[in-house]
């Protein structure tokens, strides 16, 4: 992973979405992140993307999203769109490698919208219920 690779990934993601939707979309920022709980991943902050776009083109988007995450050494185990609550605006696409404490919050949720601001595109269920380290 280096900055050039990240820059290229941002541009490629943007081009891919534009080609798919046939109109302009802006990936305003592509970030790698690490949280104190242990979760980590990538966030693509979006402008011009709507929930309708994601719902209609989910099948086409997912393979690319998985490939992109893998190219940045992030296992694409959980991919979701973060929405501006109560609206159709997609604020970001997130690729999150869930820690053992956060995993159950999402894995136990039913449906694609466990919260008003989250639309789950893909989640890989784990066997068991998380590690001992984070229990309690």
């Amino acid at each position, binding site marked *: 992973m280096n900055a*050039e690779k990240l*820059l*290229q990934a*941002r*541009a490629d993601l*943007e*081009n891919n979405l*534009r080609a798919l*939707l*046939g*109109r*302009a*979309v*802006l990936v*305003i920022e592509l970030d790698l992140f690490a949280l104190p709980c242990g979760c980590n991943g990538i966030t693509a902050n979006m*402008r*011009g*993307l*709507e929930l309708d776009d994601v719902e209609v083109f989910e099948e086409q988007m997912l393979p690319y999203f998985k490939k992109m995450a893998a190219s940045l050494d992030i296992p694409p185990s959980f991919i979701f769109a973060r929405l*501006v*609550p*109560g*609206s159709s*605006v997609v*604020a970001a696409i997130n690729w999150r490698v869930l820690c053992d404490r956060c995993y159950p919050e999402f894995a136990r949720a039913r449906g694609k919208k466990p919260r008003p601001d989250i639309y789950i595109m893909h989640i890989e269920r784990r066997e068991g219920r998380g590690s001992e380290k984070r229990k309690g």
Partner: protein
Amino acid sequence: MKKKLYVPYPGHFDGLKELISEAGKDIYSVYMAGSPDYIGTGRSNLSAPQIEDIREQTEYAHKHGVKMEIVLNSTCMGGRQLTPEGFNLNHWYLEKLDECGIDTIVVADPYLVETIARDFDMRVVVSVLSFVSSPQKAELYEELGASSIVLDPDENRHFEVLHAIRDAVDCELKLLVNEGCLYQGPFRYAHFNFFSHAFGPPPRPNVLDDYYHHKCISMRIKNPELIITSPWIRPEDIREYAEITDVFKIGGRTHYINWVLNCLRAYTEETYDGNLMNILDCPKELRDLFYISNRDLDGVIDHWKECPMICNNCGFCKELTDKFVYMYTGGGTENEALTQWSKMAVCA
């Protein structure tokens, strides 16, 4: 054209020094927001200058022949301004600003217009967020005590209305030249009310994503004609307004000084070669997406001066969009290129 330029800065002393040392001779007045602890503003704030900071910066500006304006243009104070506690607090703060030697103070609330005009030495300016868009409204604000009115930018290309306002009042008129907000944008009132609370006295809403911003940007990404129709005034075109006013305000108090200086140079020299998006205040994110050569728009003002803005019957701005709006692809990589927007967009 001889003109008075009001120039923004984020409110820190280093920024003011840089601005004045680089271009003090071209600046009539600088402006910044006050402290959000008393009266908020209709924009986001990068700083919260306290009374002593304001005093020090005002003295510095005056020493260099530049006037100081403070913007307190909250569009919603939740009625607190009308309570005895709110009145006393606001009045105390305004007194302190007056003592600092502030030249002009910008407010959006008519109640504050009247209060300040009556009780203080500093001149009161009616904010762009009072949406003065007719001679009648301008007259009413003048009656309340306004010494200057920043007109609703939605009127910037309605010359008949601008002339009527000019004829109706004696006070100074000011035009905001580079706001890139949507023409007749549906989000304006709600967005400025939100900002007024988010950047005003506590309690402040803890909002992660600003819906109005996202939606407004999104609409322009989908349809950049909305950038063309937004009522900015090109640096070359401000001379067309000579019969209305010689006072112009540059927007952008959340930008770096270098950006402000670039804008200031353009409006001082009344010419700009480059991407129009670089001198528009509001949609700064979109300068990484769209390229619109300012030069390509030479002469379009002649159409806009006569345009009733019934876009469905016209198509002029759509034509400009198809011809002159370009889009970056591969941004930030060695393959970065510009593509004509109309050639890539399915909905063009």
